[in-house]
């Protein structure tokens, strides 16, 4: 439990670094670190398949997309960047204090939790749940992926027309 708590503390610190750091590239790397640590947490809890997905897709693919967007949109002069850093510090300095306050406040809560709910059928192997019991979810995922692909295609096609 101590190991898990330490892991979760590092996870929150990585997320804090991702949101507070001034350079967008470092923020993207902080997010990748957060995803990798979350994958370790998932693996520790026994969610191996979800951990692999998190590590490959979120820590890998999404980081590549964010780094690409950052590299394609960085054209700020040095003076403006320095002014922006000071402005950012003013907006973000209360965040660590707020996080500490939330953490301390919630550490005092130890109320017993009992949740009454109708548990949906299906447990055991994740592959059985995904491919046999939740086929509609899978169908929805495929539709969403196709929608994403078409969305990107439409965006770039409009851009090409605009360039002409």
């Amino acid at each position: 439990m101590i190991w898990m708590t330490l892991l979760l503390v590092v996870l929150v610190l990585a997320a804090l670094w991702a949101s507070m750091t001034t350079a967008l590239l470092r923020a993207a790397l902080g997010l990748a670190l957060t995803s990798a640590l979350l994958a370790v947490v998932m693996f520790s809890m026994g969610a191996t398949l979800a951990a692999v997905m998190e590590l490959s897709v979120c820590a890998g693919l999404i980081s590549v997309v964010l780094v690409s967007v950052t590299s394609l949109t960085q054209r700020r002069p040095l003076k403006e960047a320095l002014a922006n850093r000071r402005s950012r510090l003013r907006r973000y300095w209360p965040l660590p204090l707020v996080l500490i306050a939330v953490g301390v406040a919630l550490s005092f809560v130890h109320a017993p939790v009992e949740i009454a709910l109708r548990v949906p059928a299906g447990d055991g192997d994740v592959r059985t749940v995904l491919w046999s019991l939740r086929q509609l979810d899978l169908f929805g995922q495929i539709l969403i992926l196709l929608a994403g692909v078409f969305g990107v295609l439409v965006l770039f096609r409009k851009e090409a027309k605009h360039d002409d």
Partner: protein
Amino acid sequence: MTIEIPQSFWLYFTFFALLLVDGLWCMLATHNLVRILIGLEILMKSVTFFLIVAGYLSGRMALAQALVITVIVIEVVVVVVVAGVILGFFRKHDSLDVENTRSMKG
């Protein structure tokens, strides 16, 4: 059916809340579109973490993993489409400031 949740729930809930506040603050305190996307990602990490914790504590990890995989697929699509929108916005306005969206139609 009633599920009794162990006391460790509050420890996990605390870290979920910290990630949630962090993501919300990241989204609200900035004018940069890429940073808003990063804040949204941190929010989705908190949701993913809480789904896994729910599966771990209730002993229904297979169901939780199926839901997390769905969330990850949607997350990727959202990030890729928003990244495309951000690039299009930057090419048009030469800026990532969200204040510039006020001049847009709609």
